[in-house]
């Protein structure tokens, strides 16, 4: 499966762009190889977006994507045209969404599972790991080789699955597990939880309580509570007595105090009926009267002072008629008048100078007229502009004429020089046929090199086939004959092997059974001999015989009267009984013997059967051997054992495969050599045609001849180019001379037209027709200056007139405003009169305002004096009232009466308060009763008793606290007994659960580590050979033979590590490789693993993103060639933004494989494909 076309319909910044990977290959006839597609794009061209697009097309657009900034999520669309190995095509569209995101061309949903099967089951992770590689993952992988110190298993495992994370994962698992538990630690989590569990278990044990313990606790609590009750009663009695003593001690001073207050009140006698605020009222009235008297004196003095000042003010009331606006106007007019007095002489001088300049200019114009007619000399603006333009044009075309004439002369002399050079340069033959021949040869250089490699490969194949043929024992022919052998099938041989194994197993079994039967027989007979060797074992046969004898003699005795017969019968009966008794007594020996006899019989039977079976098996083996020989007869091969012949068959299969491969390869080589030979001939012929010697003997390779031809072509091309350059130079000079002549003619025509127009213009301003531009420009300048001076004169005259008018107007105004009091100024100069008027008018206005303000102040002060007099009268009245109430006539007596009244009031208040305090302590008793109670009490005695009570109470309190604390302890203990054990059990359950979780997590991590470690080693053991073999070859090529191979060896810790074998045989550890070489080692391992994958699964595109940026040019070229070989099996999509890599690819890779696509600003589909050219190095 390869990607024929990627359509970026709406994705990232793309809209309707196309990357076509198929077009060129389809034009080629025959088998189509997947090919090497190099996608080149500068930064920001969209290379990363295109990479993401390929993955999204295959596996869906991620839920969170950065490619929806231009198009809405729902509008994201990609399409791809997929080409299977059999050439069938599949067009699929991918949209962003949650389901049914894969659509066919008609927009119908496509089952993802079906698509996954088309990809050979490669899911997204596999694709990312196995088929996606960028410079970061390459460097990361190489770093992991470094971090892993080249451990063989991890290196191979990581490279196989495209993930360099193996080492990190292993390390993390160990760290996490060790954080949980290590056998000797006390601080790790599980170790601590174990200690905690132990503590809780002990606690559970402690908390469990027996019935007797519980009851003891209950009894102790009851007793303590009773003691507490007793102590409470004692303390209550003591506190009651103490309270009574304190009561009396508080009452006694209050009663004494009351008596003292009553005595003092009696001493005061009769008290005047003054109001309680009498003193404040008296003081207030005295203070008011004093302040009012002071105010009155002050206001009277001020009125006198202001009246005097008002009388002193003097001014002319006529001047008050001049308002402030008129005064400001006078002031301004005075300033202007003073300035005009200074400026007027200057302006009149300037006017005279202007007049003199105008006279001079009029004279210079050479056409004197009076000032009244001077306007007749004015030249219009249009005439002036035309004259200036014509004057400027004359200068320009005169300069051009001189310049063109000089250039024409120079061009004509250069033309002569070029013609002479060309005549001296000989003709050169056409090099195009030679260039074409070189280009064709260039395309075949790779073919030639490949053919050479293939020739080598052919030799290797033949050598390998011969080597394999030598291992095919029993066959005498050549290896070329092997393919024609009618060898039996693998299944038939396997069947024979199976049958042989079965027969062998049965034979072994039969031998084993026979041996065991023989051993059992011997053992049984030996046991019988031992049994019977001790003494005779009674047998049933012997017993039967004795009983028969007994019966017979008994019969005889019964029928014969002979005593001997009876004796014999008796003897016989006794003998039989004795024998039976003996059997009974020795029953175990009897049964043992019977068992041994039975066993012996069975062993003999087994022995016989085993022998028969062995004979039967021997016959079957002979028949099988004969069949085996017959099977191989047609091949004329003497067969070894089936197992060996299976191996033989493998050699056979390999030889056949090699023969087929050699055949195909030979055909390729021959085709290539034919093409190369034709190219040799063509190049020789072309070289002859240009006078070079044809192919030399030393030129064995096409590249060598092509190189010489290229050198010749370059030399010829250089000569041809030189002649072409000369001819081109001559043509240029001719053309230039013609252009200059044409330009000269045009300039002369322009001059003629100008002259006519110039004369017409001169005439319009009255100049002679031969006047030059400089003369005309001078006239224009003077005329303009004259009219400018006239304008200035006009302005100056206006200003002088204005100054004189302003002075006259000011003089009239001053004379009109001057009052009679200032009549003396009428005869004074204007400036002095104006200044006096302004000064006096301002003084009159100020004095008038001050006069008004002083009059107002006198009125206010008179009003304040009146108020002070009223206040004095009111204060006097209040004082008279108070003295009348106190029945006194002076203020001192009034003060004494007030003091006595206040003291009487205070004493009454104190008596009431004291009696209230006594009643408050009395608990309901009357005042009289309480006073009576204290009559006989002695304070000192009470105090002494109180001191005695203190320690008694303290002792009682301490005992009570102790009792309560003890009871609380007992209650608490009892409560803890009630719930302690169950709480401890809950804690135990919780701690157990916690530990269980931790142990489970520890096991999970440990198991994961063990399994991954085992698998890494298993993978190494299983794949070390094939993967390493492939990687070795790739590494050698990627390092340009700096390293010849890879080797697994043991390090100091007896761990298997990966070593690189230098071209001088030295072994280099991965840590000692340079960064670049380590990258190449990791790339070799990755590609070797990929090769293994591709042997089992169908290919999907290998997507590479600038993986060569750390490679130098030579190694990058080698890597490109290695990848190009992959491109024959799997499509390689190589993205780069390095022009150098692109150039290397274009120079190095076979044209039938390489195709370059350029990502740019223009729509991709609209971009013309670059033709790929091959250069001979």
């Amino acid at each position, binding site marked *: 499966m390869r990607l024929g076309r990627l359509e970026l319909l709406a994705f990232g910044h793309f809209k309707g762009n196309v990357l076509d990977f198929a077009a060129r290959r389809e034009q080629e006839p025959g088998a189509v190889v997947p090919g090497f597609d190099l996608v080149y794009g500068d930064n920001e061209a969209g290379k990363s977006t295109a990479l993401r697009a390929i993955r999204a097309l295959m596996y869906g657009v991620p839920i969170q994507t950065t490619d929806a900034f231009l198009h809405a999520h729902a509008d994201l669309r990609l399409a791809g045209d997929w080409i299977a190995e059999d050439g069938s095509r599949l067009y699929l569209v991918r949209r962003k969404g949650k389901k049914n995101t894969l659509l066919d061309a008609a927009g119908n949903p496509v089952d993802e599972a079906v698509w996954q099967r088309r990809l050979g089951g490669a899911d997204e992770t596999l694709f990312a790991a196995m088929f996606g590689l960028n410079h970061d993952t390459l460097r990361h992988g190489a770093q992991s080789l470094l971090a892993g110190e080249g451990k063989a298993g991890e290196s191979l495992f990581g490279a196989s699955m495209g993930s360099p994370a193996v080492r990190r*994962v292993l390390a993390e698992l160990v760290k996490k597990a060790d954080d949980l538990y290590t056998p000797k630690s006390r601080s790790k989590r599980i170790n601590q939880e174990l200690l905690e569990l132990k503590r809780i278990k002990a606690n559970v044990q402690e908390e469990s309580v027996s019935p007797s313990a519980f009851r003891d606790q209950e009894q102790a609590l009851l007793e303590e509570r009773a003691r507490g009750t007793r102590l409470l009663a004692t303390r209550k009695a003591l506190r009651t007595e103490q309270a009574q003593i304190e009561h009396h001690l508080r009452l006694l001073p209050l009663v004494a105090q009351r008596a003292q207050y009553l005595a003092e009140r009696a001493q005061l006698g009769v008290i005047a009926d003054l109001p309680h605020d009498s003193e404040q009222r008296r003081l207030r009235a005295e203070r008011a009267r004093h302040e009012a008297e002071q105010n009155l004196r002050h206001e009277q003095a001020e009125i006198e002072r202001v009246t005097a000042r008002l009388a002193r003010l003097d001014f002319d009331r006529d001047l008050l008629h001049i308002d402030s606006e008129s005064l400001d106007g006078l002031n301004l007019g005075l300033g202007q008048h003073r300035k005009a007095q200074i400026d007027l002489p200057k302006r009149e001088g300037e006017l005279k100078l202007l007049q003199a300049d105008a006279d001079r200019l009029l004279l210079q114009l050479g056409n004197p007229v009076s000032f009244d007619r001077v306007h007749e000399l004015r030249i219009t603006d249009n005439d002036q502009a035309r004259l200036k333009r014509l004057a400027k044009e004359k200068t320009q075309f005169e300069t051009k004429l001189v310049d063109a004439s000089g250039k024409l002369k120079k061009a004509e002399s250069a033309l002569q020089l070029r013609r002479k050079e060309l005549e001296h340069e000989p003709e050169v033959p056409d090099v195009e046929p030679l260039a074409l021949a070189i280009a064709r040869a260039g395309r075949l250089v790779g073919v030639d090199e490949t053919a050479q490699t293939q020739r080598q490969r052919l030799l290797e194949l033949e050598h390998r086939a011969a080597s394999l043929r030598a291992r095919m024992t029993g066959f005498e022919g050549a290896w070329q004959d092997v393919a024609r052998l009618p060898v039996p099938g693998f299944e038939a041989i396997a069947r024979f092997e199976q049958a042989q194994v079965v027969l062998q197993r049965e034979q072994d079994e039969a031998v084993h059974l026979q041996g065991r039967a023989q051993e059992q027989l011997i053992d049984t007979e030996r046991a019988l001999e031992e049994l019977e060797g001790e003494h005779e074992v009674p047998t049933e046969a012997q017993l039967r015989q004795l009983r028969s004898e007994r019966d017979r003699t008994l019969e005889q005795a019964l029928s014969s009267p002979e005593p001997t017969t009876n004796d014999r019968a008796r003897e016989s009966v006794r003998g039989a009984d004795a024998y039976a008794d003996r059997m009974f007594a020795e029953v175990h020996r009897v049964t043992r013997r019977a068992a041994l006899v039975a066993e012996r019989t069975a062993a003999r039977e087994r022995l016989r059967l085993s022998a028969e079976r062995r004979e039967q098996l021997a016959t079957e083996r002979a028949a099988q051997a004969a069949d085996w020989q017959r099977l191989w007869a047609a091949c004329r091969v003497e067969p070894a054992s089936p197992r060996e012949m299976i191996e033989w068959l493998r050699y056979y299969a390999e030889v056949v495969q090699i023969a087929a491969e050699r055949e195909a390869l030979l055909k390729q080589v021959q085709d290539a050599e034919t093409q190369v030979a034709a190219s040799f001939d063509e190049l020789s012929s072309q070289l002859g045609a240009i006078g070079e010697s044809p192919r030399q003997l030393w030129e064995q390779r096409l590249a060598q001849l092509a190189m010489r031809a290229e050198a010749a072509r370059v030399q010829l091309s250089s000569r041809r180019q030189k002649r072409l350059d000369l001819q081109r130079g001559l043509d240029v000079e001719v053309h230039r001379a013609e252009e200059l002549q044409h330009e000269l003619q045009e300039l002369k025509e322009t001059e003629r037209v100008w002259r006519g127009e110039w004369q017409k213009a001169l005439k319009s301003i009255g100049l002679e027709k031969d006047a030059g531009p400089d003369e005309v420009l001078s006239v224009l300048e003077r005329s303009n200056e004259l009219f400018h001076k006239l304008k200035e004169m006009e302005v100056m005259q206006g200003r002088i007139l204005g100054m004189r008018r302003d002075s006259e107007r000011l003089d009239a105004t001053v004379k009109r405003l001057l009052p009679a009091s200032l009549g003396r100024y009428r005869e004074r100069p204007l400036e002095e009169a104006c200044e006096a008027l302004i000064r006096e008018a301002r003084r009159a206005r100020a004095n008038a305002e001050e006069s008004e303000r002083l009059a107002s102040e006198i009125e206010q002060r008179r009003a304040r004096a009146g108020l002070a007099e009223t206040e004095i009268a009111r204060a006097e009245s209040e004082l008279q009232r108070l003295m009348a109430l106190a029945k006194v006539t002076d203020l001192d007596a009034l003060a004494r009466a007030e003091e006595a009244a206040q003291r009487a009031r205070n004493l009454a208040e104190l008596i009431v308060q004291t009696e209230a305090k006594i009643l408050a302590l009395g608990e309901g008793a009357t005042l009289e009763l309480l006073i009576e109670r204290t009559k006989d009490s002695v304070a000192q005695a009470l105090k002494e008793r109180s001191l005695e009570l203190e320690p008694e109470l303290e002792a009682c309190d301490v005992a009570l606290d102790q009792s309560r604390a003890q009871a609380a302890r007992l209650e608490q203990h009892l409560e803890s007994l009630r719930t302690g054990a169950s709480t401890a059990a809950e804690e135990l359950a919780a701690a*157990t659960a916690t530990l269980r979780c931790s142990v489970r997590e520890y096991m999970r991590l440990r198991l*994961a580590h063990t399994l991954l470690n085992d698998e890494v080693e298993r993978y190494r053991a299983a794949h070390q050979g094939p993967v390493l073999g492939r990687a070795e070859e790739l590494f050698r090529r990627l390092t340009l033979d700096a390293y010849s191979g890879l080797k697994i060896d043991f390090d100091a810790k007896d761990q298997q590590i990966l070593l690189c074998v230098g071209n001088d045989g030295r072994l280099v550890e991965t840590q000692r490789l340079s960064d670049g070489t380590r990258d190449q080692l990791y790339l070799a391992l990755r590609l070797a693993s990929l090769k293994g994958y591709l042997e089992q699964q169908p290919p999907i595109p290998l997507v590479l993103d600038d993986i060569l940026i750390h490679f130098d040019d030579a190694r990058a070229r080698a890597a490109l060639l290695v990848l190009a070989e992959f491109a024959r099996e799997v499509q390689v999509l190589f993205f780069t933004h390095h022009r150098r890599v692109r150039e290397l690819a274009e120079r190095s890779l076979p044209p039938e494989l390489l195709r370059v696509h350029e990502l740019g600003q223009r729509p991709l589909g609209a971009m013309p494909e670059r033709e790929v050219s091959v250069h001979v190095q």
Partner: protein
Amino acid sequence: MRFVHASDLHVDSPLLGLARYPGAPVDLLRQATRRALSNLVRLCEEEDVQLLLLAGDLFDGEWRDYNTGLFFAAEMARLKRAGVRVITIRGNHDAMSQISKHLTLPDNVIELSHRSPETRILAELGLAVHGQSYAHRVQTEDLSQHYPDPVSGYLNIGLLHTSVNGRPGHEDYAPCRLESLIAKGYDYWALGHVHQREVLHERPWVVFSGNLQGRHMRELGPKGATLVTYDAGQISSVESRILDVARWEICEVTLSSETDTEQALDTVTRCLEEQIERAGQRPMIVRVVLLGHTALHATFTRDPEQWEASVRARASELENIWIESVRIETSGTLDAQALGARGDALGQLARRLTTLKQDPAALGALGRQFDELRQKLPNEIRQGATGLRLEDPAELSLLLAEVEQLLLSQLLASGELE
């Protein structure tokens, strides 16, 4: 007239498998079995029942704490004050109990003999109660076959601690056949021993009332007693009454479109809230099981402890809920079966893990690396319904499923293109 049938009180048996963590509602669950017994007594008081039948396993046998007995006695005294009589038998756990040897129960409590079946006739209630206590912990004989015939003129009740003809998760003690119980002619068989409520037969009624309070994750759902109403020698109704104080539940959360852990936590929270609503404000102990096909699978398996802590932190914002554990049974974009088809090293690892799960011998060998740790662990870790058996291949196989996800997700977490 009414009586209540209860069994398997297991007073003071702790709740198992609850690891403490910050924010766990420890106090809510403290002494849950005692509080459930108090609920039973309150039911008798409120429903005005005349008799309480307790069909065995009032205590855990190993228990030696006198206070457990005192508490039980106090609750029985409450029943005495309410005029409720109590008839009990001993079950397999009680048979070994040391508590009752020293315990004096109020005289309203009758314990039936362990020597032979005994009948108590409560004439004023119209009831004849037959039963026999366990003499030993292991009772392999069918006790019911020796129970006396029904007493005529009374409502006959058989009190028996049995697994009938076997119940999963329960020892097969005092085995008997349902048919023989039915044939006995009693009106009601009040059975104990099986902790899940079950009505085996109606008329005559054969009923397991189940235990009062779930104690671990295998005792899910509502728990309580059975309230029976009878009149004139006929049972008119048999009702279940919920009495547990904390509920054990499994909260299965199916994740699919969640793109980050915050969203996943929101989904879990919603599911927990629904559970709380169903439990009716009762404290809950919940095992959160994450299911579904989610892109977050790798995140969960990479550090399950961290994830479990996050779920617990969220749950502590809700009221009355204790997260027993968080089980990650999601499937990710990784399918071990599909990965096994890969030809690379990861495929080999996936295949190895798959075959290992079905290979007890290899699992056993793997488990031997924990021998040293196993010796240090106390018995409590291995015992009980929630025990961890380090050497058990089945346990290791379960663990291996988690290991599989851990390894595959971690190995695939790197090596990405771009």
